[in-house]
């Protein structure tokens, strides 16, 4: 029998074909178990805030993942049941839920698994959505009719998705099975409404990105200055910041930049008794609302007259943890993370942001929520999942493990929350105070992103003193009003 000769070219060709076949298979691949997701980030020991050396500092927050949460435990125990065939041998209900990719919100994965475990008749697929860029993907999914049965959103994008008919109105479903609506922070629930209809259930709410003020107690002590109290005003904040600023040591009284986002600036407008947007959200009122003008003047003076906060060029690398800022403006959601960067460098505390001249506080009513897809085939099941993901137990777990600001009053007021930091109790009073002004300032034409872009481009030169105050105010007003005059998206 003659030997079959394999040429070099033939062998290389065969190898290339084999490699191509393997590559093609790898690209599609058998889908891994749908509930698989990266493990929750295990904090490196170096990141945990030290409890020593900062006796007065509220560094007692439990480390992420320290406790096995109820939902996580349930998921672990009940997962095999979820994989088992549905009772009665019928086909499982195929459902999809969106979860975040961020380590900060890993609770969504175990909580979804726990719900799946309790509902063995459902084959639940978890789809990871990258938080920062989810709006783009959501649009593509909506266009193709493949949006998840239950998906998350944020107050900034929520009205756009709702206006495109992507969300199921939940009013009727809540009458059938109340998810505990009374327990939600009213402002959070309000943020979940579109054209008067409830389009989502909130799982998170907070009053703004700069409304928790962290103070460096060691630095205050070194200057012999008393710590501020909860009833302080914006004017007192400015005076204190000016006293604490030490140019020789390159230490700033504050890093306040509440003009970064127009909706954060709105909280000062609210506190001064006005509003950046008109009631019908069709007019931009930076120069026409006296309270907004006062708020702008206050912030301008803080940077340019009192020189108590850094200008644009001085902000690079400026962090509270570096010890170069006496009073750091943060969101309540950022306190835990900032505390981890401080470690045992200095003692610190946190208190509510200042009030306006009449004792008012503003809130931009930031909300994150879960919605049900308008075209879902399983509205009751989807609503049940959304209710579970926004339930008290799940929120308590996400709060304890990850410091997520809850949307339920009972969690804000819980013993667990007070043990972490009394600030949580003070914040809920702020958010539920009928005098607190809100809500999130969406323009009537829903051109939120464009408005924010214009604000960013024009507010920075204004507040950094790169243009005269009046000129900067007019430029900002005109640019933002031009966006608000555009047609509805």
């Amino acid at each position, binding site marked *: 029998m003659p030997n079959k000769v394999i040429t070099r070219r033939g062998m290389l060709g065969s190898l290339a074909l084999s490699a191509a076949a393997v*590559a093609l298979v*790898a*690209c*599609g*691949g058998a*889908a*891994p178990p*749908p509930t*698989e*997701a*990266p*493990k*929750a*980030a*295990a*904090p*490196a020991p*170096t*990141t945990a805030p030290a409890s020593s050396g900062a006796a007065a500092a509220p560094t007692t927050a439990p480390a*992420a993942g320290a406790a096995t949460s109820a939902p996580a435990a349930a998921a672990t125990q009940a997962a095999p049941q979820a994989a088992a065939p549905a009772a009665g041998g019928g086909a499982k209900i195929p459902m999809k839920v969106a979860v975040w*990719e*961020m*380590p*900060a*919100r890993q609770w969504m994965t175990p909580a979804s698994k726990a719900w799946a475990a309790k509902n063995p008749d459902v084959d639940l697929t978890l*789809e*990871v*959505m*990258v*938080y*920062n*860029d989810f709006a*783009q*993907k959501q*649009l*593509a999914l909506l*266009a*193709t009719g*493949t949006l998840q049965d239950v998906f998350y959103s944020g107050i900034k994008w929520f009205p756009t998705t709702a206006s495109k008919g992507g969300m199921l109105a939940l009013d009727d479903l809540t009458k059938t099975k109340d998810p505990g609506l009374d327990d939600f922070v009213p402002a959070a629930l309000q943020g979940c409404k579109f054209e008067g209809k409830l389009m989502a259930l909130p799982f998170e709410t907070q009053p703004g990105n700069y409304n928790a003020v962290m103070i460096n107690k060691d630095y205050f002590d070194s200057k012999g200055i008393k710590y501020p109290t909860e009833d302080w005003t914006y004017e007192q904040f400015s005076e204190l910041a000016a006293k604490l600023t030490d140019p020789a040591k390159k230490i700033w009284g504050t890093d306040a930049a509440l003009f970064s986002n127009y909706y954060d600036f709105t909280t000062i407008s609210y506190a001064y008794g006005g509003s950046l947007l008109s009631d019908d959200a069709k007019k931009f009122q930076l120069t026409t609302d006296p309270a907004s003008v006062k708020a702008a003047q206050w912030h301008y003076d803080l940077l340019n007259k009192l020189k108590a906060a850094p200008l644009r060029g001085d902000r690079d*690398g400026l*962090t509270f*943890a*570096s*010890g*170069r800022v006496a009073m750091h403006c943060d*969101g*309540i*959601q*950022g*306190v*835990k*993370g900032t505390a*981890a*960067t*401080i470690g045992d*460098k200095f003692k610190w505390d946190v208190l509510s942001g200042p009030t306006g001249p009449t004792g008012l506080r503003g809130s931009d009513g*930031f909300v994150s929520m879960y919605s049900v897809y308008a075209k879902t085939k399983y509205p009751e099941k989807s609503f049940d999942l959304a209710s579970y993901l926004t339930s008290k137990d799940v929120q308590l777990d996400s709060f304890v493990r990850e*410091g*997520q*600001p809850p949307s339920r009053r009972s969690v804000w007021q819980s013993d667990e929350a007070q043990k972490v930091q009394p600030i949580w109790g003070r914040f809920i009073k702020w958010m539920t105070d009928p005098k607190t002004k809100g809500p999130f300032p969406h323009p009537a034409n829903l051109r939120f992103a464009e408005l924010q872009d214009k604000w960013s481009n024009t507010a920075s030169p204004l507040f950094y003193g790169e243009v005269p105050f009046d000129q900067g105010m007019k430029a900002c007003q005109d640019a933002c009003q031009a966006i608000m005059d555009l047609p509805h998206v």
Partner: protein
Amino acid sequence: MATTALGEVARARSLEHRRGVRPTDVVFYALMVVLALIFMFPFLWTLSSSLKTVQELFDFPPPLLPKVPQFRNYVVAINTVPMVRWIGNSVLVVVLATLGTVLSSSVAAFSFARFKYRGRDLIFMLTLATLMLPGQVTLIPQFILFHEMNLIDTLYPLWVPFWFGGTAFYIFLLRQFLMTIPADLDEAALIDGASYPRVFWTILLPLCKPALATCAVISFINQWNEFNTPLVYLNTPEKFTIALGLSFYRNVPEQGGMPMQHLLMAASVMAIAPCLVLFFSAQRYFVQGIVLSGLKG
């Protein structure tokens, strides 16, 4: 006379040899080292930051080096997410997309450069016009297309399109290069009995190696860094590419969370390692690429 001239050259060489390093050389090399350090600084800073504790990252003045190198950051970064899998996915996508880009673009370029047919210039202009279309415009139609083919949450949408003409930029680049090669070579091969595919494959493609390498290098870098396409098409973390996967370590201020910057730095160093390997192994082509295209990739 000739002897004298040769002697002069020999003497000059000898002098140069004996003179050794000239002061201007020292200045030149010193300048080069300084510039190299300046350009390398961002990467060195990333490397240094990847070995620091979170608290050190926020120290002021920022320390150049970590007190105690935290190699554990790399371990945590790998163990927290399926890092190796993501790098593998990226390699697979990048290789297939680059191969498709180079092959299909060169075929299209061959057509534009060598054949005369009705509407050729118009088609070429239309092809170039697609350069002005932002990716977002075609995103949803393309998504619908792949959805109809049931290929969402697979890696196919990330590389299959590149086997259908690549992109206009590469077609243009290769067409321009092909037009500099004399048509006499094609004609000689055709007279010898070669077919058009053979002329393309055996005669022209080998002569296009510098341009092909340029396309390959630029395509590799673009694909490696591509974020939007995997973001839209992939849902399962195990299928993510490294560019998308790094978002796991991003902190979003409005959402709080524990600081992850040290892990992000470690993951970033690992993510750019394959690009570094490619750069050092294909440095010559990178330089050619910059010269040919005027782009730095």
